[in-house]
Every structure is written in C-alpha cells, then in structure tokens.
C-alpha cells in the first residue's frame, strides 16, 4: 500500500498508571457515587454536564468543546474479562490483546505490518518516549522510538555541529552495507544504515514546523507536539504513539490535587493538538485514542483510590461520531466486579477492531485475536 498524506493516521496517548474513570466521566446524579467517595467526590456544581447523567471533571472544559462539536466518542465501562490489577499485566493485555496467555506482539505492531508489509517506510510507526511499548512490538517491523524529537539522532553527544556532521559522515560510511563480512555483521550494517536514514528524516520535522499554538511544557504536551510535528512533516507515518509519564495516573494518595492537574493537562493538550492540526489543515485524517490500563476502585481510601477494573477511554477526530459508547457500569454493591470495582461491559478489543476496520480498513480479526463486535463510532 502506498502511503500518502491523506491516508488515515492513528495517534495514541496512553495514560499510564490507571486513570480514575469515575472521576473523569462522573455519574453526577448517582447518590452512590457520593456515598462511595466521601473524600474524593467532585461537588455537583463543579461538574461539567455531558448529558442528564454524566459529567466531566471540572478541569476538562477543553475536551467538552469536542463533545459539543460531536467529535468526541466516550467509551464507558471499557475493559476486559477477569481484570488484572497489575499495571504491567493490564497494560500488556491492552497492548497485546491477550488477556489470558502472555503475548509478545503488539496490536499496533501487527497493524503496522499490514499497513506497510515490506517495511518500505522506516517511519510508518513512530513512538515518542524511551523504550518501545509492547503495543508496537513485532518482529521485522521497524519502529523508531524517539526520546526527544528536537535532539533525535545518532551520536548526539558530540559537541559542535561540524564535529558531529563529520562523525556522522564516518558513521554512514562505516555502516555502508558491506556484503560478505558475515551475516550478523551485514545485518547490523543494514540496520545502522536504516537507523541513520530514519534519524535523518525525523530530524527535519522540527525545522519545517511552524505553529501559532503553544503546547504545555509537560511531557504530555511536548510529546503531543512531537506527534503533530511528525504528522505535519508528511513522512507517511500512520501510527504515532506516546505514553504519559510512567504511572503518573496511579493516584493512591492525594488524588484530588494530582488528578486535577493531569486531567487539565490532557484536556488542554488535546485541544492544542487539534487546533494545531486544524490551523495546518491537517486534522482530517487523524484520529486520537486516549486510554488507560484500568480504572480505579469505587470507594476512595481517604486520600486516593487504588487499582480497579473498568475505566473510560476516548476517541477524538473529524470523522469520529460523538456519543457515549458502552453502558455506564452500575455502582450498586451487587453489580460490582470483585473487590469493589466497576464491571466492564465494553471490550477494548471492540474499540480496536473498529479503528482497524473502519479507519485503517484492515482485517481486525488476526490483529486483535478474535471477532469483536464493532462500535460504530466513525461517521
């Protein structure tokens, strides 16, 4: 498949640590919510209403704009059967679509393989952050992992532009494919050449970027800016991935203050991101997915909330059909998941399948490992 700028693009912002769905999209008229959250219930008059039953956390005004435009899909009660309360395991399950066995391949690694079967473009998928999330892992699928786009490249520790350019020149020649020095060596030479090529291309993205908007100086803001820069540079990148600072949403204590800051940052950044793309007339082919590995316990612990089960996720985009998808889980004791949690009713693989089929036009079944009913959230 030949990639053009108008091919559909997926951006993902993973909210690491387990975001508290209950205080993100709040069942504002449910008395049980206040009973179970003596310390952390958001006062009714501060909640931003979404509909008769639900409302946003007070800091999420910027996201509400997209709801009003009809371009925000809210997934409630999202999760999977037999929840894991381990960050690592649960994130792995979201990454690999394997709730039982331990999987090694990521759903977006597989999707990238289908989007670019011969790895013609080393930048079909790009991750922002150190280390590759398992979502993007698949043998033979090159994925650039960019710690900082402004400085990304090889031999970045060499001071002085001239010195570094000279060193890179030597590097380029050193790694020039040298057939016959042994198969492992040949392979490393080829890989080094690819890496240099990818870095060379990526390093041009910040230079060609101009913008009227200002992203927040946080890691979330800066990585979303990198995603915008890479998208706007037109490298044919189809999957752009980033993760919020590790376990930042793990709000066991002092949640009220910490989460207000995080949710404000996420909402503002999403707003900035789409404003940026719209100003460049480049938002039409981008869908943004926000998810977290799990929600949190229904009852607060006097200061925060502990690891839970079903949570909320969001999709935003010009082609997204706004609405609430899934059913808001009951807070009643008898309907809770084991351990005082919200019970899932929307499998995350349904959302993935919809993205794969309706957005990327791929066959979802081999990627998510089964047939999951699609959620019709694309217009």
């Amino acid at each position: 498949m030949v990639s053009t700028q108008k091919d559909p693009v997926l951006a993902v912002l993973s909210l690491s640590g387990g975001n508290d769905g209950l205080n993100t999209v709040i069942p504002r008229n449910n008395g049980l919510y206040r009973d179970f959250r003596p310390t952390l219930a958001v006062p009714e008059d501060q909640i931003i209403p979404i509909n008769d039953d639900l409302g946003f956390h007070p800091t999420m005004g910027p996201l509400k704009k997209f709801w009003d435009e009809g371009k925000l899909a809210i997934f409630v009660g999202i999760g999977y059967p037999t929840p894991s309360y381990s960050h690592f395991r649960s994130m792995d399950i979201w990454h690999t679509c394997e709730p039982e066995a331990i999987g090694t391949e990521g759903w977006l690694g597989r999707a990238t393989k289908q989007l670019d079967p011969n790895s013609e473009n080393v930048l079909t998928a790009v991750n922002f952050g150190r280390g590759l999330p398992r979502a993007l892992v698949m043998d033979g699928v090159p994925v650039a992992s960019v710690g900082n786009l402004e400085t990304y490249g090889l031999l970045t520790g060499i001071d002085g532009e001239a010195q570094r350019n000279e060193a890179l020149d030597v590097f380029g020649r050193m790694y020039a494919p040298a057939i016959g020095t042994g198969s492992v060596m040949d392979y490393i030479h080829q890989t080094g050449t690819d890496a240099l090529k990818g870095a060379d291309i990526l390093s041009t993205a910040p230079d060609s970027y101009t913008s009227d908007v200002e992203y927040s100086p946080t890691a979330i803001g800066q990585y979303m800016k990198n995603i915008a820069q890479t998208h706007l540079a037109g490298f044919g990148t189809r999957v752009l991935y980033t993760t919020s600072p590790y376990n930042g949403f793990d709000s066991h204590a002092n949640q009220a203050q910490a989460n207000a800051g995080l949710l404000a940052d996420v909402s503002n950044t999403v707003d900035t991101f789409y404003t940026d793309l719209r100003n460049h007339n480049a938002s039409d082919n981008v869908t943004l997915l926000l998810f977290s590995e799990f929600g949190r316990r229904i009852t607060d612990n006097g200061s925060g909330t502990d690891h839970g089960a079903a949570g909320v996720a969001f999709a935003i985009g010009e082609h997204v059909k706004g609405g609430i998808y899934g059913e808001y889980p009951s807070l009643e004791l008898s309907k809770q998941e084991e351990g005082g949690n919200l019970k899932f009713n929307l499998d995350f693989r349904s959302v993935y399948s919809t993205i794969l089929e309706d957005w990327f036009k791929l066959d979802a079944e081999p990627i998510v490992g089964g047939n999951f009913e699609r959620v019709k959230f694309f217009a």
Partner: protein
Amino acid sequence: MSTHLFGLTNRTYKYSHAVGRAEFAGTGFRNATDMAIAPDGTVYVCNRSYENRPDGVHVTAITLDEEYITEFGAYGEADGEFMWPTSVALDSKGNLYLADEWLNRISKFTKDGEFVSKWGTAGSGDGELNGPAGLAIDADDNMIVVDSGNNRIQKFALDGKYISQFGSKGSDDGQFNLPWGIALDGEGHIYIADWRNDRIQKFTADGQHEASIGSTGSGVGQLNRPNGVAVDADGDIYVADWMNNRVEVFAPTGRYITEFRGEAELSKWGRDKLASNPDMIRQRSLAYANNPGYEKNLCHPCSVKIDPQGRIAIIDHTRNRIQVYVKEAVPALV
C-alpha cells in the same frame, strides 16, 4: 508468695497503637528515616522514599493520634528540597532542621514547613560535613550533628557556625564507625548510635566518653547496626536495633531491661485503605492466619523518640508506620 523482679522495678511497658500506612503522599509514609516531636504533639516524619519515586520524598506532619496536618519538601537540590534525608530536629522556637547525607547540608524550615535557610559544606575540615546522619538540638539551641562519614560529632550554632567536635574513626572508646542516630538526656549527655561498632556510646556534653552499651550480635543486650537512640525522663535508653528488628531498652546504668519486637495492629489509615479494597481484606485474613507475626513485628526500626506524654514512638521503617508504646506508672496487665 513473693514476686521476682530481680531489681527491674517500676518498668512496665505496653503496646499502644500504630500510626500510618505505606503511601507516597498524604496519609502515610515511605521509607521514613527519622521523626521529631514538638511540644504540642506535632510529629514531623522524614520520608526518604527512593529516586524513582521522588514524590515520596518529603516531611509529613501528623500527630500520634493519626491526624494528618501537612507535608512539605521535595526531592531535589533546590532550596527546600533534599535527596537523602536522614534526620530531623526541632529548636526551642519550633523550627525544623533536616539533614541530607547526600547533599551534605542542613535545611531549616518553619514549623509550618516554609523553607528558611540552608547551610553545609562537603569536606572533612572543621565544620565541614561528610554524610550527616543524626541531628539533635540541646537546651541552649546548639545543634549537634553526627558527621557520619567523618566519624565524628560536631557542634554548631543554629546558623551553621562551627563550635567544636569530638571523635575519630575506630573502635576504641570515643571512636566511631559510621555513627548514625543521636539523643540527649535531661542532663545534656550525648548518646550516639555507633552503627558499625554495634554499640551506643554515652558522652558528657563536652564529649568525654562515659560509657558504652552493647556488643555485636543478636542476643540479650547485643546490637546489630543500631541506628536510633532515645532517652526518656527516667534516663532509660531505647535503642533501634535495626538489623535485629527490635528496640532494646536499657536502664541508665546500661543494664538490659527488655525489648520490643512490635505488636502492631491496623492503624486508622490502614483500615481506611483496606475498606476500599475488599479483596485485600480477604487476602490479608488468610495471610494473617498463616503468619500473624509478619505484620505485627518491627521491620528495620530506625528511629525512636519520646513524645511529650512520655510515649515511645518507633519508626517501623520497612512497614511504613510508627509503633507506639507506653511506659505505665501503674503496672499494665498484659
């Protein structure tokens, strides 16, 4: 019938309660190393946490009745920040001083946690510091610092002006091997937890060696890397016997009286935490049936302090809580 007290009269102790739970912020502690207790009952707990959880590094102000007051400080090198906090002490006006053994500095905060000033220079010269590990402030508002890496005790004015020092590296009387905790008694004697020599040394206010308590081992009256020491109004000495997971109690003469191994029950904040995690209540009940001692016992206790009511508070480092004992005038029924 006669009782056999063997001379150990007027000493009965009873476990009172536990305070705190494991938490990186708010109502709990993370790898707390020391505490200071103000006359009004405010307890300042210094949380060391670790570098990948810098959010856990701060001072938590609470009461022993488990009321949360506030927290302040953060991980880092800027003013009001610290990296490897070891100890805290209060002056007569209620200001708090905190020692950082990595940055080799003492930071001063108001009782409400406002940063005031800092001082400290790394080195081994007079008034320089190498890993300050224990702090005490005497009745005249002089600060006594356990300058651990330099194996000496230094006395300063509160603004950091050097006054005097004693001690050197070694195992003879008056020598030290990486000393840690410090306590003062009502008469101004200085007690030092001489950590790697497995003993407590008692000095006069001007640094004359008076006595040593303890030897290496895990038996009665022996110590394995003691790091905290306290002296109560009667002159009894409490030693956090770190690697033996106990607090030993000695009479003013140095005679062994008893030890606390820990008897913790769930704290108020601990109950709150479990209440919102019913699956853990279930798991805990099975674990408790299998091994109740695990949760009750002290694990790496590392600081002992006496509160204004004479209660004995112990930082139970690894379990992230404080265990409180009382010394009862009327003998306690165990």
